[in-house]
């Protein structure tokens, strides 16, 4: 199986080459995306088939010669392979249609398969070199994709911040691996697993791994690149970046912390929980303020990464205390949420892409009424929005429900830090979930409902069949995963077993397909039944009323309390919709401030409202750093314009200093 997967990677790379060659021909698109679709499906099947099988290894004579390139396919890798295969297949299918709108296919086609290949290689890698190689390759390829629309405003900055942060992440992981490998250079994971780091070393590895994987995943405060880079890329790539690449980062974290390092320490769980909680809330708050559809989705990705990390933190907390059943539950929840997020975030990015190609804008304030112009897209977008808002019976709810169950599992952990963090994280998670619902009401309500806010939106045309097919498949998967969460949980079980040597009870054994993390009397959820109830009740109500009471409908102008205003501008906009929440949360977190400039009576100028928002993370962390580098660069720049005498003085000084050092040494 592993050789098949490796062949797929090779085929993807070949596809990248072909893409470079055929980029400017129409066949290139079909070739690249069609090929990627097929290969991703193969990967998906291979991943599914390998979930339960034993670990497979293969070593290729590539990379560092005295190590070789170690590939390993275990349950964890297989699980993420499924994720990549699924996300990649969806994106490729979508792109088969969406790609037609690309202005510069030569900037996308060569890098798209390479990006996929990079991600697959990351999960397959079984030595530090190959891992980082693939990790950086993934970053580089996606950077090139981010730069696709390079002449658009902001793309340059997005690409810059993205690749810089990606490299920062790579270098941090490099340091972490350096520590794990030790002075002897045991770069293969097998020898790292043997050397259990302890004490300060372990702490250092953990911190580095968290920073490294976290900055790629989008953990606050290392998330700043994400809302810039994800929207800049073409939509199917955004879907991959948000839906899949962040998960690959999560994979990296899991691989290092749970697999390579051995057991965690309790304070590490506290750190992860704290980061996860803050990330979840900050991400969604930022999403609430955004009016660029894709940026909004990217911010929401930050939120979901936070949720996943909360799950991982819980797993660590329970593992530390030897409570394997709980750890398994939390880990399952985290992985399931990762899977779900791939589904609905890809779906939402697809819809954003469809909207973009239909209207030519990503600005929420210029959309509206698309439910009439693009009915299928609207339906799937609604499914996506409801799924990401964690509403039953869709998949987002199922995984968040599991995380809530994990939070509630053990209030009696011995460590004070965990005692405190668990409920706080529960509250943050609840807050994030509620805000996410608000955020996606806003997205769908402003974007698809109401009246068109621009001519482009008024004349939008439904997108092509491939795009719709991709979206429909993902919407269906969202629904299926919500209805049968037990199947997903059981599928994840081997991964959890591998990591924690324990698993959740088998779920599919229940005749009603109810999921019960610990016991049915304690907590249980049956998505299928709830969905059936809702459908049945809805049908009963609708049919009953239509039969028994009235079914007459009369179309009439908008009533609007008797004061209808025909102009769409009188509608609530995205900004006005978010205003209450901006006032409540934004004022504290983002120093959001509104200034109203009201003309005096008699003046003819329009009244204006101006809102300002500061990103606290940027202000507190990045701005000073940028300032420092700029200052240092400015200060050093003088050295470019010195006279030769001064340069000679440097030589002289160096000589004297070294001689002095020599005398001291002697």
């Amino acid at each position, binding site marked *: 199986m592993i050789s098949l997967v490796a062949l797929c990677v090779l085929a993807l790379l070949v596809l990248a080459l072909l893409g470079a060659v055929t980029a400017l021909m129409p066949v290139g698109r079909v070739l690249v995306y069609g090929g990627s679709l097929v290969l991703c499906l193969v990967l998906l099947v291979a991943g599914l088939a390998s979930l339960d099988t034993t670990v497979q290894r293969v070593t290729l004579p590539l990379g560092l010669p005295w190590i070789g390139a170690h590939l390993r396919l275990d349950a964890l890798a297989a699980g993420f392979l499924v994720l990549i295969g699924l996300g990649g297949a969806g994106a490729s299918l979508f792109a088969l249609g969406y790609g037609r709108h690309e202005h510069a296919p030569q900037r996308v086609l060569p890098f798209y398969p390479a990006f996929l290949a990079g991600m697959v290689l990351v999960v397959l890698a079984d030595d530090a070199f190959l891992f980082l190689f693939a990790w950086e390759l993934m970053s580089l390829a996606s950077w090139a994709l981010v730069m696709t629309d390079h002449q658009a405003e902001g793309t340059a900055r997005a690409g810059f911040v993205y690749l810089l942060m990606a490299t920062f992440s790579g270098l941090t992981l490099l340091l972490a691996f350096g520590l794990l490998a030790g002075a002897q250079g045991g770069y293969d994971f097998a020898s790292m697993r043997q050397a259990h780091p302890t004490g300060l070393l372990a702490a250092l590895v953990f911190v580095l791994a968290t920073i490294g994987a976290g900055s790629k995943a989008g953990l606050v405060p290392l998330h700043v690149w994400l809302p810039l880079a994800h929207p800049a890329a073409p939509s199917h790539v955004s879907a991959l970046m948000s839906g899949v690449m962040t998960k690959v980062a999560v994979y990296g974290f899991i691989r290092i912390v749970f697999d390579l390092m051995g057991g965690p320490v309790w304070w590490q769980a506290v750190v992860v929980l704290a980061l996860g909680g803050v990330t979840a809330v900050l991400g969604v708050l930022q999403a609430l303020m955004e009016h660029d559809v894709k940026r909004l989705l990217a911010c929401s990705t930050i939120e979901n990464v936070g949720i996943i990390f909360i799950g991982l933190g819980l797993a660590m907390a329970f593992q530390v205390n030897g409570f394997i059943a709980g750890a398994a539950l939390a880990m399952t929840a985290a992985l399931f949420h990762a899977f779900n997020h791939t589904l609905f975030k890809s779906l939402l990015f697809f819809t954003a892409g469809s909207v973009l190609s239909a209207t030519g804008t990503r600005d929420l304030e210029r959309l509206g009424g698309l439910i009439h112009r693009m009915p299928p897209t609207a339906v799937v977008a609604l499914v996506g929005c409801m799924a990401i*808002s964690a509403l039953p019976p869709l998949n987002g709810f199922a995984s968040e429900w599991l995380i*809530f169950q994990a939070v509630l599992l053990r209030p009696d952990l011995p460590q004070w830090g965990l005692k405190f963090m668990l*409920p706080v994280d529960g509250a943050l998670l609840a807050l994030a*979930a*509620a805000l996410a619902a*608000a955020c996606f009401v806003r997205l769908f309500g402003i974007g698809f409902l109401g009246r068109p806010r621009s001519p482009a939106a008024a004349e939008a045309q439904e997108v092509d069949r491939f795009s719709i097919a991709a979206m429909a498949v993902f919407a269906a998967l969202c629904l299926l995963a919500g209805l049968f969460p037990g199947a997903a949980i059981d599928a994840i079980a081997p991964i959890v077993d591998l990591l924690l040597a324990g698993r959740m009870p088998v779920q599919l054994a229940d005749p009603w397909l109810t999921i019960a993390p610990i016991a049915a009397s304690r907590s249980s959820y049956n998505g299928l*039944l*709830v969905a059936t109830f809702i459908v049945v*009740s809805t049908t009963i109500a609708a049919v009953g009323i239509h039969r028994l009471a009235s079914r007459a409908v009369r179309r009439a102008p908008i009533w609007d309390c008797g004061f209808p205003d025909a102009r769409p501008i009188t509608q609530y906009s995205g900004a006005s919709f978010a205003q209450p929440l901006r*006032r409540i949360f934004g004022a504290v977190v983002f120093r959001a401030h509104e200034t109203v400039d009201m003309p005096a009576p008699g003046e003819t100028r329009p009244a204006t409202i101006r809102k300002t928002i500061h990103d606290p993370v940027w202000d507190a962390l990045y701005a000073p750093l940028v300032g420092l580098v700029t200052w240092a660069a400015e200060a050093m720049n003088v050295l470019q314009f010195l006279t030769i005498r001064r340069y000679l003085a440097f030589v002289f000084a160096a000589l004297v200093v070294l001689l002095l050092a020599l005398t001291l040494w002697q």
Partner: protein
Amino acid sequence: MAVTEATLAEAMAALGSLLVQFLQMALVLALSPLLTGVVRKVKARLQRRQGASVIQPYRDLRRLMGKEVVLADNASWLFRVAPYFIFASTWVAATLVPTFATGLLFSWSGDLIVITALVGSARFVQALAGMDIGTSFGGLGASREVMIASLAEPAMMMIVFCVALIAGCTQLSTIAGFMLSEAVGLRVSLALALVALIIVAVAENSRIPVDNPATHLELTMVHEAMVLEYSGRHLAMIELASSVKLLLYVSLIGCIFVPVGLVHGSAPRAAYAIGIVAWLAKLAVGGTLLAVLETSVAKMRVFRVPNFLGAALMLGLLGVLLLFVSRGM
């Protein structure tokens, strides 16, 4: 033969449970307008008005259902489907709450978190429906609704946590069973949770001081602003859903904090009568107290609501923290 008899008995038992389950569903649906009517009546009496009859809500519903629907020109399918969905998910949520009996046939298909989420689903769709026509009022209502929800939902989750941590589960039937037992005792965190739950319930049901179900003054509306464009049977469904939701919350409070009279699903038939009577009593008391509350306080400005709900959130969090620190609280 023995096997078949056993199977038969099982089947009969299952049928019985099914019947009880349906009875609860039907009762919830049937009684909810009455509860609304009672609240209105009591409120009117407290305000020294005669007030409409307690069955007025039924009449309203009948009248509304019989009328034709006036749809705005640009209403989408979502607008038309929403009322039914809102109704259905609220109803399903309500039937998951043990009203007079615990351990019903389908009670395990969802726990307290699911109930909260189902109510959330209804609100999600309602907010969307409010924005469908593209009026300023619809947007206003939706915007404020999600603002309130964004605080009320976490508060509700904190209450759920509180209760779940005490009872060791999130399954309402089990919680109710636990609350009936001696193990509960008096706990600070439970009291906090109760206060928080009442605040949340008031907010969720668009009651004074958060919202006024009777007002149609534009700038103070929240819930009503969202449903302004609805008419006829659609409006009927939404009104009915509101009533069911009110009933849901009163039942929920009753089930958790006053689990007196709740019977277990496998109890003899006769016990159900007691259960139902106890439930009716709880509803009556709850409705009266709500009316008293609504009469005695004034409506808040919209931007004071966050503080109000924030208090609930903090209370809930405090309760949970206390529980994490010490099981005895």
